[in-house]
């Protein structure tokens, strides 16, 4: 069968079971847009290419399938550079197709020419410039294989216009053996020797903490993680990228650690004698000052990317492998050392056990190495004491300015428990992560590593396209919203009913917080105004329902109204307290032991 390169490209995407492409056409990608008219693949026409990239990321976050974006050459391609960098930092599987000027024009500074494979070399897992139409099916298969296996990540395929126009003989690679990837062999299974050492360390720990990262979600390992936690009785912290991978309502869940983590999660890691890092990478926002991080802890580090092992903190046991596979191997190793399944009724994360803080670990075989394991009760008692003493707090004054945390809690309580929450970057992101109760994996979408402002609106649209059955709420800041709000036009036009809660404090709030705390309240270029733009009018102009909330009493009715609208996007402009700050906080560069728990400046450390 003779096809044009363009036809072969679209057919290859169909062979990969792609159901949606987020994109925007232009000169160099024109040939590829023609066969889209005849394809079963849905195309979502964005208003800016950055939106296409973040939509593809949001789609990938909630479905686990690679998001696909397609844009033209030059500025089209450079506009999607930020989403590529974002997806690289957060290991999001994404395939970006870019048009390129004809091969004969490459290097001549042709109209809309940009060497995008060079530009994105360091912010993609891999990229390809296709120079022969005959290569297209193989390269597409390679691109999806690389994006989705090992440590997932974004890839880019650059297709010159003459290549899309050229004729080729259609084929489809039968399997990975027919791909040309001699240097790509991701490892999934852990080294048995290291697994055994890890299991032994775990049975010797008196103050263990499981440090669960985004790799748990990427590896579809939430179930395995829960079994590991319950059988060992080990408490779990979930990083910003791992929220939802372990139920917040589970008695063993300590919540989020890090710069704005809760006191117990942060301090548990500081005082631990064993950290079991599963798909986490000792990010600086988690560790604080690295030389002072978890000083007494031995480290078991499991990561599918061997380069993460020892990159920041030298582990005592390093295991390169897929988180789910390795956890299952660990469970078998623990069992062989005498730690059996959880005896009696299992510790359940459903809401009925919300008040039950008791923990029942796995049964122990008499005479086995597991029998001599330390009693974890004193450690759990200490953790409970910290939770009692240092909960997350804020104070909504009667008739006072609306607190943003109250809005997050009201949203949480008024929406289905499997609602997908999407955040941008800044104070609103931290409040969302802190005050939402995540009980299900793949319900939290945010920009973690890159910290990309403007992520929320397009990512929420992508998430809703991927999971149309679920309610999707973006919790956004006013600064973030202004960066990518134009994609609500896309959402209206495509009938994608996302909901956006703007926590409008009229400032670039996180920067303002730092200027208040560390720059002697010298506020430099952070004021945005609550009324400019008029968010309600702007929302209406984009085909959305726009609502404004100025007091605590109006919060619940507005959310109820928004939840009842399912035929178009809704934007609520919540006018929140501009002076509210995110606590707890570990100042940049400080030790996690110097965590500041509240505005009184009191340090929780002891």
């Amino acid at each position, binding site marked *: 069968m003779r096809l044009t390169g363009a036809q072969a490209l679209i057919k290859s995407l169909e062979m990969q079971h792609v159901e949606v492409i987020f994109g925007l056409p232009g000169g160099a990608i024109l040939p590829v847009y023609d066969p889209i008219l005849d394809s079963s693949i849905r195309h979502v026409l964005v208003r800016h290419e950055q939106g296409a990239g973040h939509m593809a990321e949001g789609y990938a976050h909630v479905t686990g399938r690679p998001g696909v974006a397609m844009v033209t050459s030059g500025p089209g391609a450079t506009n999607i550079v930020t989403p590529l960098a974002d997806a690289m930092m957060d290991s999001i599987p994404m395939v970006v197709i870019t048009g390129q000027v004809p091969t004969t024009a490459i290097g001549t500074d042709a109209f809309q020419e940009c060497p995008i494979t*060079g530009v994105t070399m360091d912010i993609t897992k891999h990229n390809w410039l296709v120079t022969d139409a005959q290569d297209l099916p193989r390269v597409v298969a390679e691109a999806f294989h690389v994006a989705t296996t090992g440590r997932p990540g974004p890839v880019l395929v650059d297709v010159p216009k003459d290549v899309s126009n050229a004729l080729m003989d259609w084929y489809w690679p039968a399997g990975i053996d027919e791909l040309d990837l*001699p240097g790509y062999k991701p490892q999934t299974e852990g*080294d048995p020797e290291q697994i055994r050492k890890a299991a032994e360390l775990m049975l010797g720990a008196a103050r263990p903490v499981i440090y669960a990262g985004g790799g748990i979600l990427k590896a579809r390992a939430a179930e395995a993680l829960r079994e590991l936690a319950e059988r060992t009785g080990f408490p779990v912290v979930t990083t910003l990228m791992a929220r939802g991978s372990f139920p917040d309502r589970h008695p063993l869940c300590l919540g989020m650690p890090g710069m704005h983590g809760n006191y117990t999660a942060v301090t548990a890691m500081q005082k631990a004698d064993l950290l079991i890092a599963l798909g986490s990478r000792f990010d600086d926002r988690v560790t604080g000052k690295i030389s002072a991080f978890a000083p007494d802890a031995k480290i078991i580090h499991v990561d599918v990317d*061997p380069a993460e092992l*020892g990159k920041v903190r*030298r582990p005592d046991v390093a295991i390169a492998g897929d988180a789910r596979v390795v956890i299952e191997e660990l469970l078998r190793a623990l069992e062989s050392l005498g730690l059996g399944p959880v005896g009696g009724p299992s510790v359940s994360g459903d809401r009925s056990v919300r008040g039950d803080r008791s923990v029942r670990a796995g049964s122990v075989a008499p005479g086995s190495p597991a029998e001599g394991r330390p009693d974890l009760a004193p450690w759990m008692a200490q953790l409970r004491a910290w939770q009692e003493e240092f909960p997350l707090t804020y104070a909504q004054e009667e008739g006072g300015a609306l607190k943003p945390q109250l809005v997050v809690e009201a949203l949480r309580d008024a929406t289905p428990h499997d609602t997908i929450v999407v955040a941008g970057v800044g104070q609103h992101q931290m409040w969302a992560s802190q005050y939402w109760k995540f009980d299900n994996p793949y319900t939290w979408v945010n920009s973690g590593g890159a910290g990309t402002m403007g992520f929320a609106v397009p990512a929420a649209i992508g998430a809703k396209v991927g999971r149309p059955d679920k309610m999707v709420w973006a919790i956004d800041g006013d600064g973030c919203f202004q960066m990518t709000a134009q994609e609500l036009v896309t959402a209206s036009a495509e009938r994608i009913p996302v909901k956006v809660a703007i926590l409008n404090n009229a400032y670039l709030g996180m920067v303002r917080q730092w200027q208040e705390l560390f720059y002697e309240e010298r506020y430099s270029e952070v004021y945005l105004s609550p009324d400019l733009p008029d968010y309600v009018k702007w929302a209406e102009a984009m085909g959305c329902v726009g609502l404004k909330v100025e007091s605590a009493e109006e919060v619940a009715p507005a959310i109820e109204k928004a939840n009842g609208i399912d035929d178009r996007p809704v934007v609520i402009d919540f006018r929140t307290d501009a002076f509210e700050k995110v606590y707890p906080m570990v100042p940049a560069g400080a030790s996690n032991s110097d965590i500041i728990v509240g505005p009184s400046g009191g340090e929780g450390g002891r």
Partner: protein
Amino acid sequence: MSPAVGNQPAVIGNQAEGTPPRHHIVTAHVENKAGVLARVASLFSRRGFNIFSLAVAPTDDDRFSRITIVVDVESAPLEQIVNQLDKLVNVVRITELAPDEAVECEMLLVTVEAGPAGRDRVLAHVEAFGATVVDEGDEGDEGAGGAGGAGGAGGAGGAGGAGGARTGLMTVMLAGTPSSIDEFENLVRPFGIAELQRTGRVALPKLGPGAARGRDAAPLHSVTGGIQGEAG
């Protein structure tokens, strides 16, 4: 003279006895595709890994090239450098070579301002090191061009006698261990160096038991094993 060329090998060559070597040799078999060298170079730049030298050439299999990189292990741990390099999709196989496990070779081209007075003494060094005079500026001398490399040191020196006297310059080629090249460079430097170019080193594992640790991109647990070994 270029300080970059003169100094960098000297740092390597002047390693004090008994101190751990600051440099390590990593050879990477890479796919012979467009842009692969840029990916490798960009990785080193982006991660802050220092390179002392880098040499790249095709192998006997034209699908692959071999990149020999002398890395500064003070800028980053070797495991981290190797593991990051291993992540490049186009890198097929990496071999780490400690300096005492490697046969190393480098080539030098140097134009010496020998002058009539220094000429005989420079030629003596040329002969002692087995170097070759490849050019003395005598365009009529066929032996002084590309073919000069084939001749012995003495032969080339003799053939170029008249030309050398005219220009006072001679270009010498020397291939050998990096330390012998350092030594030769230091010996001719007092005569005056007009231009100097070194290739950077290439290396192969020493023959004999337990020398090379080559590995495919696949068996990564050996990397973690390495971390384990040093962590204990």
